[in-house]
């Protein structure tokens, strides 16, 4: 199997060019000031930056080029998400670009792809996937929305929680139990019988909603069942791992710079062994996170037998690394990082949020061990 549903891979030089454009875009338009402004805005994300990302052709990251997508495979997605994590990107790249575009790309519904992907790719429509229930486990077990068919039409009932950009989305792809199986349904933003409640989130750069369905009309996306969902989630896991690896590295770099310039006791505090040793240990985490995220992306792209173990490994290793590095960063900065105006807490908030998004570390450690056991037998 290969997890890349987007057709022929992009060659290395083109990938490098895309990465470079994206990095430059974030450097020019994704500053900390912009992140803070966007996170406090009504939309909860940076609409201007999202337009620019769309103009760059990256809004439908995981969708095939023929439908206007970027045609990016796991490796390119992971590397772009490293840049996004470093900049604390405040835009629906994961929601619309990876989850929604990826789920459509992984479906068998050519008509839906042709109809829905181009406006996602152009940035005209923001899409997201509503999947997990109130327990927030992002597992098939935790899907609590039920789809009922009457004739050719479907109606949805139940609750989807923790829906990223759920209140902002123009298009919702809702995973529901339909006649015993998981299926994906398209629901319009203005559908009757749907109530979207914007949730206050601890990490203000990632808006979320709770969505209640009470007989909401929905259209089935053909061939977007459990298998397509799992493939899409694997892609999202690798994307999120990349975001975490990138965030960890950036907040680490910021910390090391501070250690070199902050003078106490007559010398840079980075000369104190306690901080030097913390820094050395954190570097192991930062590099391990990068290796894990990239290793998982490569395995997924190659369809390697190790992919399952590596994706789960990346999921918890990158979450733990980002959490640990962001937490240590505050401590190593001291008082200055306890102020709202210092960026350290923005990384800490993102790290805490990313560590729960798509499921927590303990969940993925268990999946990793299970994958190893399976390989073992």
């Amino acid at each position: 199997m290969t997890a890349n549903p987007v057709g022929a891979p992009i060659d290395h030089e083109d990938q490098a060019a895309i990465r470079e454009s994206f990095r430059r875009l974030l450097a020019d338009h994704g500053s900390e000031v912009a992140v803070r402004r966007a996170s406090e805005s009504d939309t909860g994300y940076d609409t201007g930056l999202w337009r620019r990302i769309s103009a760059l052709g990256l809004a439908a990251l995981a969708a095939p080029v023929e439908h206007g997508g970027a045609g990016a495979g796991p490796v390119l997605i992971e590397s772009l998400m490293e840049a996004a994590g470093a900049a604390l990107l405040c835009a629906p790249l994961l929601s619309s670009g990876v989850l929604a575009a990826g789920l459509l790309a992984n479906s068998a519904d050519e008509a839906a792809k042709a109809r829905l992907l181009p406006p996602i790719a152009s940035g005209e429509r923001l899409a997201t996937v509503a999947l997990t229930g109130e327990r927030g486990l992002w597992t098939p077990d935790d899907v609590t929305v039920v789809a009922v068919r009457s004739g050719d039409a479907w109606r949805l009932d139940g609750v989807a929680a923790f829906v990223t950009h759920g209140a902002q989305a123009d298009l919702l792809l809702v995973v529901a139990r339909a006649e015993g199986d998981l299926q994906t349904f398209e629901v319009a933003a203005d559908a009757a019988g749907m109530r979207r409640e914007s949730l206050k989130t601890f990490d203000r750069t990632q808006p979320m909603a709770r969505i209640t369905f009470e007989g909401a009309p929905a259209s089935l996306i053909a061939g977007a069942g459990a298998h397509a969902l799992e493939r899409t989630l694997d892609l999202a896991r690798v994307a999120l791992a990349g975001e975490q690896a990138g965030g960890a590295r950036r907040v680490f770099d910021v910390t090391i710079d501070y250690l070199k310039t902050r003078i106490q006791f007559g010398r840079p505090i980075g000369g104190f062994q306690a901080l030097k040793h913390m820094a050395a240990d954190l570097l192991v985490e930062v590099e391990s996170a990068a290796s894990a995220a990239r290793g998982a992306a490569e395995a997924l792209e190659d369809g390697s037998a190790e992919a399952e173990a590596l994706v789960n490994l990346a999921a918890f290793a990158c979450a733990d690394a980002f959490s640990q590095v962001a937490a240590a960063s505050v401590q190593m900065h001291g008082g200055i990082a306890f102020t709202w105006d210092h960026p350290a807490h923005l990384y800490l908030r993102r790290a805490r949020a990313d560590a729960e998004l798509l499921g927590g570390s303990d969940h993925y450690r268990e999946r990793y061990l299970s994958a190893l056991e399976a390989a073992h037998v």
Partner: protein
Amino acid sequence: MSDDLSPTDVQAQLDANAADTMTRIFAHTVAAFGTEAVKQALLPRLLAGGIPFCLLYSEPGAGSDLASVRTRAERAEGGWRITGQKVWTSGAQTAEFGLLLARTDWDAPKHKGLSAFLTPMRQAGVDVRPLCQITGERHFNEVFIDGALVPADHLLGQVNEGWKVLQSALGYERVGMGAGASERRPGSVGDNRVDLIALAHGRGRLADPLIRHQLAQAIAWRQLNALNMDRARAEITASGASSLPSLGKLAMSRILHGDARVMTAILGAASLLDGPEQPDAEDANYRALHAYMTSIGGGTDQIQRNIIAERILGLPREHEADRELPFRESRAVIG
């Protein structure tokens, strides 16, 4: 009368009045270092907890290295004129006095040119600006001081011996933090101790073996610190001294970060949320941030470890390149 009060007397009166940590710091400092005039005027009100105070130690350039403060005090008619900037001052808006550390001799080594002042806060020349913390609260302030006057008899201790006054005051502050000061968002109900078991039970996670393991360890850390503090009290009663209180702040830092970690593990994805409609999440998130108050404030964990290693264990002091230099030649001044 006031000059007869021993530290033990002060302690007894503070205990009788159930004084908070801030009042304890001030009362002990004024009793030990105040002039007779100041003690006469303030000590009775102070012991009763009736004077709002603030601490003016830290500066943007003097955090862990408090001895590098650059706020200056110069002799002037009627006392001293103070100019400089302080940070991390809680209660500065309402304070009647601030315990201020300022430099009075720039040619002496850094620890030897400092003096401590009881600074009247309600005067022109003292500008208090709230500082927003990572929790979103504005508990602390920056204080900009431009020629504020301190009466001559409001000097604490001797001129250029302010470091001694500060060490005494910091000792009381750290003991207060080690006993576990306010951990919770102000206004929330209940005592300061998290009931972790109840949270796990309420969230249906109490049967999860990994949660149980973390719960037991987190509660154990708290109980072990309480047992250490019980022993400290017994030792002080028996022999007048104990090194155990010095461990409390470092232990409390682990406890508070640990509590936040367990709460987050219990909540799982629910910790993504925040705000008053999600009180458990808000509490866990608040604690995850607020724990840095203890691990950074009042001397970071790193500084605490130095203190424990040097003062209790007798390990060699950290090398400090500018310790003996005239302060005006140190990197704190010349960069």
